[in-house]
């Protein structure tokens, strides 16, 4: 490494007559100071003769500064103009000079902030458009694969699907039930507070039932699965993609959409309606509890109102949305997984993207559906 002299001293740059003579240690620890000194040194002096004999320790950082001082090309030819330096030192300066001379010939592109910003904006817009096209194409591919395998029971991946049912459905059951229960209680409290002014607290029952049957049951379950399962799909498939497992599946003549995506999508489409149903029940239960404790509406009374006032179609309208949401969330999760490119960072980026996209799509679609059902009078 650096040859350490007996008395280490900070590096300096002396100008004597027409000669520049670097003195002391030109090492990384003095880099900032030396750099300042170089800045003070007038440019015209740089081409002057240079005397390296007074140099103390030298490492690549110091050598890089010397290269700036005398020019990389001149440093690369050090054997010619400073043959009496020790061989190891000449080797260091020569190697560095050569490396930097080579680099100087391939200059960096200057940055142009305005054009770069415009280019980035354009890239983002085009990326968004491509993304939507890709998603539509992928949905088509999944549906086509589904249609192709539906008539051939020997190609149904039952084991994989059951495993996915377990992971996305059964394991998510407690969290869905708990969260909808809490939201149900909150909605009941809100209803009780607002309706008390009108003396109509009894309608809290209707509020909770309407909200959960039509919207909240399925919406909350879908959002939870978007956060819990879409991200898991992306991470699983992304890790496989990064490890080239997806390519391996393809080269074995197996369709990754058939073995990996279909079981996930189908499992999700089966579990989300079930989870939505659980969410509805548990939300209404939360509401009933608040009604019982805060409004003195007994459970029997609650059920009686439910039976009298709430027709079945609310339940059906709510549940009908579940398979659609499930399909979208699962497809987005899988597609983002396929889009992962190699690095660990990419897995993270696409996982985030899949959660954001699937929650966005679920809420957007729910809003559109609410509008549609209202206009249809369902």
């Amino acid at each position, binding site marked *: 490494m650096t040859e350490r002299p007996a008395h280490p001293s900070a590096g300096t740059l002396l100008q004597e007559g027409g000669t520049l003579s670097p003195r002391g240690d030109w090492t990384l620890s003095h880099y900032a100071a030396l750099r300042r000194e170089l800045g003070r040194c007038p440019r015209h002096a740089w081409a002057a003769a240079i005397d390296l004999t007074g140099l103390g320790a030298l490492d*690549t*950082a110091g050598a890089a500064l010397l290269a700036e001082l005398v020019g990389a090309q001149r440093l690369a030819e050090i054997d010619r103009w400073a043959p009496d330096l020790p061989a190891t030192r000449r080797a260091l300066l020569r190697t560095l000079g050569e490396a930097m001379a080579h680099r100087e010939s391939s200059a960096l592109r200057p940055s142009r902030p305005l054009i770069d910003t415009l280019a980035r904006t354009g890239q983002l817009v085009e990326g968004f458009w491509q993304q939507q096209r890709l998603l539509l194409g992928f949905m088509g591919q999944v549906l086509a694969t589904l249609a192709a395998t539906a008539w051939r029971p020997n190609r149904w991946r039952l084991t994989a699907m059951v495993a996915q049912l377990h992971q996305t459905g059964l394991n998510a059951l407690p969290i869905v039930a708990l969260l909808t229960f809490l939201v149900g209680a909150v909605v009941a409290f809100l209803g009780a507070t607002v309706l008390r002014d009108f003396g109509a607290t009894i309608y809290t029952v209707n509020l909770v039932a309407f909200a959960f049957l039509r919207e909240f049951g399925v919406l909350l379950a879908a959002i939870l699965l978007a956060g819990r399962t879409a991200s898991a799909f992306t991470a699983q498939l992304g890790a496989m993609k990064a490890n080239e497992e997806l390519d391996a599946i393809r080269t074995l003549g197996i369709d990754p959409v058939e073995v990996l995506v279909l079981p996930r999508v189908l499992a999700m489409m089966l579990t989300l309606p079930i989870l939505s149903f659980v969410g509805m029940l548990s939300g209404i239960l939360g509401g009933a509890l608040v009604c019982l404790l805060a409004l003195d509406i007994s459970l029997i009374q609650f059920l009686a109102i439910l039976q009298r006032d709430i027709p079945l179609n609310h339940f059906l309208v709510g549940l009908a949305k579940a398979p659609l949401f499930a399909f979208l969330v699962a497809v987005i999760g899988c597609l983002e997984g396929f889009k992962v490119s190699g690095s660990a960072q990419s897995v993270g980026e696409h996982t985030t993207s899949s959660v954001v996209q699937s929650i966005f799509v679920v809420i957007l679609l729910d809003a559109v559906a609410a509008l549609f059902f209202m206009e249809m009078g369902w």
Partner: protein
Amino acid sequence: MNQEPLIRVRGLTNRFGQHSVHEDLDLDLYPREILGVVGGSGTGKSVLLRSIVGLLQPSAGRIEVFGEDLQRLSTQDRSRVERRFGVLFQRGALFTSLTLQENVALPLIEHIGLTRADAEALARVKLALAGLPGESATQYPAELSGGMIKRAALARALALDPEVLFLDEPTAGLDPIAAAAFDRLILTLRDALGLSVFLVTHDLDTLYAACDRVAVLSRGRVLVADRIDVVEDTDDAWIHDYFHGPRGRAAHLAAYPAEES
């Protein structure tokens, strides 16, 4: 070699549960030498490297680095010693969220306290020194080929001007041309910077082309550590198979073409 060794490993023992990887292992690394460490899979070459650089607490034994026992140093002193190491990991281990020049500049900013502009300028010098073209400095690791990642990782290992360079299978996964270029690069850097190099490898060509001494790991200890012509004549079944198998002969011939007759 009658110099003081830079690194002195004595009685190193590493056990994972019941499985013992090293048993009473001794090894020296001398200044300005390139030491190749070979051994079959699972003989603990990488474990040895990780023990020396302090990533792994050995079960027993002493590891002296620059005359100091690493395990007895305070965290601060350890960090000071570890700064004199440069480590090239098997798969590069470049930070994927940083560009190449940021990767190399990171230790310069953290440890030396250079400004960002200075650190990146110096980082570009190191990248050039490792043989990467100028425009690669602003690229991300994901955009590079395996050989370029190895070179960039070498540039990062060289960032703080280390005295000892640890290379874990530097030529694995490179094509023969890139591997030969990498061997030459290591030799050039050793000569120019006066490095000592601890090189774990499977690559016989690297052993013949670049290494001053070769240490053979087997059955938990160093069987022999000497010049390669001494090592290849050592009486041991594994060494014989390794150096006198078809690949070993080919590498030998490539290194000493005069003996072909």
